[in-house]
Every structure is written in structure tokens, then in C-alpha cells.
């Protein structure tokens, strides 16, 4: 049955805060889904004109291109410190950092922990894909036991390289953070939950409640050497065992 375009209802659209810059992510990469969720959240809260995003060094280095808001590109690992500086300079701004697991939980460990410990009123999105995506698939602090990477060709041996770091659990030990949660994106149910969590993490900041961290278990099909669909299954079946989903702190 032919349908007149005028009769059609728009039920799904590109968020206004999402630019049409060409994506630099690989097919099946979860960075893309996450980007959309954040843009949608910025739309829904109507904060685009006072939001400042902090881009990391990692595959998301071009994150400053994706949103119609101000942005700063930070040194590798230092995004939470840069976010602190922006927020302290103007507390009315909504400041979020977007950081990979190498960025946030390895080189940036000190800055990440101390921004949380000071209870900076910022929102941190922490993308845990268990690998260094951008530099060529090296081990990340989050890599699973036995995971083969370019720097652990025999698989991660905890005796030599330690165990997967549960960074959000570490941050959850601190007094200050108001919201710490771990989410995933491997199916629509989890995408919906992650969307809610991200909205909450931004809302906390708007309501001046304090530090919020959303860790997201993400797929890197390229460096995992998996098809996108298999990467999703891998998160659901394997990754989730090391990194349990759900809220770790919710003082909101």
C-alpha cells in the first residue's frame, strides 16, 4: 500500500546535538552507539549551549567533532583533570569527559581517582573495551585474564601483567561520588538501560549533586578480531562475568 510522506510520522531522528561529521569508528564499534546516546541526552536536558565535552586520546580522539557543543581535546589520560579545570572556572557549565580504558584507568589513574575523590561535579563516561583500540590492540588494564593482545600474544598472564582492573569498584569505595554504574550496549535492552544511566549522570550534574561515572562495556570488533555480532555475544557471555553490570553507588 503506497504511503504519502505527509502521512508519515517521524519516530526516530538524529539528535540535534549530534553533528553530521563523518564517523571515524569501525563498523560494529560501540563508540558510535554511545555517542548517539550522549547527544540525545544533551538534547533532552536542553543543555547543549552550556555543555563542554572533553575528548580523550584514543579512538574517541575526534569526539569534539560529534556534538554541537563546545569541546576540548585533552592530553592522554588527563581528561578528568581538564574537566575539573573547566568546571571550577565556571560551575554553571555542564562538563563531561569521555575516556577509554587506557586513558581513564591506566595512564590517567591519578587524575581519574582524584577528580572522583574531590567529588567534582562532572560526568565521566568511561569506555571499557578491554584493549587499546587506537594504537594497535595492545593490552589494556581491563583486558581479561588470558586475553590475547598485541602485547600479550600468549594471552594476559596475571602473574606478569596483573588482573583486569575493576576501576569503577575502586571509585565506588570513595566517599564523594554520587553515582557510579556499569552498563553495556550489546542489545536493545541494555542500550535502553545505559541511556537511562547516562541521563541520570548528566542530571546529577545539572542538579549540582556531584561526581557521576558511567562505565560502559564496549565492543572493539577490530582488535578483538571478531565480527560485530560475535563481539556483542562475547560481551554478554564472557566480559560480563568479569565486569558485573549495575549500579555500584547511587546516592542521587
Amino acid at each position, binding site marked *: 500500500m503506497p504511503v504519502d510522506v505527509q502521512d508519515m510520522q517521524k519516530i526516530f531522528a538524529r539528535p540535534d546535538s549530534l553533528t553530521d561529521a563523518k564517523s571515524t569508528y569501525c563498523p560494529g564499534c560501540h563508540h558510535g552507539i554511545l555517542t548517539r546516546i550522549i547527544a540525545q541526552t544533551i538534547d533532552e536536558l536542553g543543555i547543549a549551549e552550556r555543555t563542554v565535552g572533553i575528548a580523550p586520546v584514543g579512538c574517541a580522539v575526534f569526539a569534539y567533532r560529534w556534538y554541537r557543543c563546545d569541546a576540548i581535546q585533552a592530553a592522554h589520560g588527563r581528561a578528568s583533570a581538564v574537566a575539573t579545570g573547566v568546571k571550577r572556572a565556571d560551575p554553571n557549565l555542564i562538563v563531561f569527559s569521555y575516556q577509554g580504558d587506557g586513558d581513564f584507568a591506566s595512564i590517567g589513574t591519578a587524575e581519574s581517582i582524584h577528580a572522583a575523590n574531590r567529588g567534582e561535579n562532572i560526568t565521566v563516561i568511561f569506555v571499557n573495551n578491554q584493549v587499546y583500540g587506537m594504537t594497535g590492540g*595492545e*593490552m589494556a588494564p581491563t583486558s581479561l585474564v588470558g586475553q590475547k593482545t598485541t*602485547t600479550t600474544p600468549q594471552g594476559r598472564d596475571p602473574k*606478569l601483567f596483573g588482573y583486569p582492573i575493576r576501576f569503577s569498584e575502586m571509585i565506588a569505595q570513595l566517599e564523594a561520588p554520587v553515582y557510579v554504574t556499569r552498563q553495556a550496549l550489546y542489545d536493545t535492552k541494555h542500550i535502553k538501560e545505559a541511556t537511562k544511566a547516562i541521563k541520570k549522570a548528566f542530571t546529577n550534574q545539572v542538579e549540582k549533586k556531584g561526581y557521576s561515572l558511567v562505565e560502559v562495556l564496549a565492543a572493539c570488533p577490530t582488535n578483538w578480531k571478531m565480527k560485530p555480532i560475535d563481539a556483542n555475544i562475547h560481551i554478554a557471555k564472557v566480559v560480563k562475568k568479569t565486569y558485573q553490570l549495575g549500579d555500584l553507588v547511587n546516592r542521587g
Partner: protein
Amino acid sequence: MGERLLLRGNEVIAEAAIRAGCQCYFAYPITPQAELLQHMAVNMPRLGRTFVQAESELAAINMVYGAASAGVRTMTSSSSPGISLKQEGISYLAGSSLPAVIVNIVRGGPGLGDIAPSQCDYFQATKGGGHGDYHMIVLGPSTVPEAGQLTMLAFELADRYCTPVMLLADGMLGQMMEPVELPKPIEIGSLPKKEWATDGAKGRDPNIVLSFDLDPEVLKQMNLILQKRYRQIEAKEVRYEETATGDADIAIVAYGTVARIAKTVVKMARAEGIKLGLFRPITLWPFPSQALRKLSEKIAMVLTVEMSAGQMWEDVRLAIAEQAETPFYGEMGGVIPTPQRILSEVKKHAG
């Protein structure tokens, strides 16, 4: 003669370090030196040696500080932004007179920059990028085989002078492949014992590794020891290469990959009747000032070509003073001066 292998610069540096007896390697991933790290990740454990992927460059250089103190041959590698993070540690290595090798596969800067080849870290490397009155020996390979040879030399010099030594290459040399005969491995057991090492005070007084003293007079004496050593290095370790300078009317001064590009330019220029020569510093610190000064006494036009805004050019002008004309041609941000571009600069100044 050994077997000729086709290998990348990064792989050759890693393999040469292994052959030089590097027992502990610590680094954090960064482009364009990823293959160096990966080669070490595969091969060091296989040989029963230490490979640690550090949580940051800061940690890596301090792991080097520890391993050097313990008396083993040790190395770290990175690229520009990572080398910036290592500066504090390098200053400590120099201050504590510890031997260590640091590889910088330079990329375009400043800030995050890009990953294309550049020579923009020359100041940082040769003028002491960290704090304090110190120098490190800086070696600038120009070909893949030379990268291997100079890596071996770096370990030797580090031990001989108890100093950090930097191998300063760039992304092009790190990424390109060229035939090499790998250097012969040394016998680790044959290396002299380091009497100062913190390897356990068994039957001797404790050894202390430290870079400071709060008494200015004592710290001055420590500095004077370093300065004396630097004068020795300047007297003995200067290395450079001259190509076709004998009858030259004009000479290029260039190091590293730019120097090898300039070698092609020498041929092109001579084919057109321009008597062009090339002066190539191999040690960037100590800089071959005297040799260059001597050359400028017979060549009136000395063109410096660099992938920077003119960092080595300052040393060239210091060496030559007013003896010859010293024009400059540089590219920045990872742009490579191609043979044609250099040739047209040469033509501007020749005759």
C-alpha cells in the same frame, strides 16, 4: 657476513637492544613505535628477560630508573608526547649518573600533534628536556641498519659514561623497511660488574643511588663531576659523516631521515652541475661543531635542512658563527621535505 633481512626500523631497534644485552624493557604503547613494543613483548619473555607494559610513560621511565640502579642494561621507548612525560625521570637518571637507553620515534607536535615523521624534539633531546644542568648523549640514525648499530652503541656509551643515551629517530625510520644485517649479540656475562649498583650490600658498604644533596656546595661538586664527564664525551664521542664535500661549493647540514633524503639531492644536484655536499651529524649531542666549523672555512654556503622550525640550525650557526652563509629550509607538522623541494632550495642558494 650475516644474513640480510628486510626489517622495519622499529623492529631493528628492538632486536639490536636485545642483542646489546638489554635485560629489562619498560614502555607504554604509542604510535609510531608500536612495533618496537610489540617486538619486545614477543621476544623478551621468550629469552627469559623482562618486558613490562607500564601503566604510563611516567611509570616506564621510573622502572628504567630502578632497573638501571640494580645494574642491568635497560631501555624504554616512546614517541614525542610520551617522551615529554619521561623528562623528569631522565633528569633523575642524569643526576644519579645511571646508564639507560631511551628511544624517541619522533612525530609531529606540539601537543598531541600527529603521527607523521618530524624532528621537532631536537631541542628537548639535545638541550636537556628535563630540569637541571645535564646533557644526554643523543644519536641520530639515518638508515635502518644504522638504527641497529647506534642502538648497540647507545648501550655501550651509557655504560661507559654512566649516562642516559637517547636514540632520536622519527616515524619514517621507525616504519620503513630496509635490508639489514643484525649486529652480533654481546655476551651479557662478559659485561664488567657495576660496582655502584644497588644489587645487595653483601660484603660491602651499602650503595645509594640518589640525584641530590641539600647542601649547595656538595650539589655543586656533584654537578662539576657531571660537567667534567660531558667535556670528556665532547672530546671523544663526536660522530659525523661527510658526503661529497671535497669539491663542494654548497653543503647541506641534515641529520636522520632528512640526511638520507639529502643524499639523493646531492646526486640530483651534481647531475645538474651543482657541486653540492652533505654534512651529517650522527651525534646530535655532542654536536660536531668543530668539524662543521672547519668545513665552513672552505664552503661559503651551508644550508640547514630539518623537519623542524630550525632547531639544529641554532647549533649550526653557533658552530659556524659568521664564517659562511647559513640559510635554512624546514618543514613542520610531519610534512617531509622531498628531494625536489630540497633541490629547489639548494638552487636558490647555489651560485
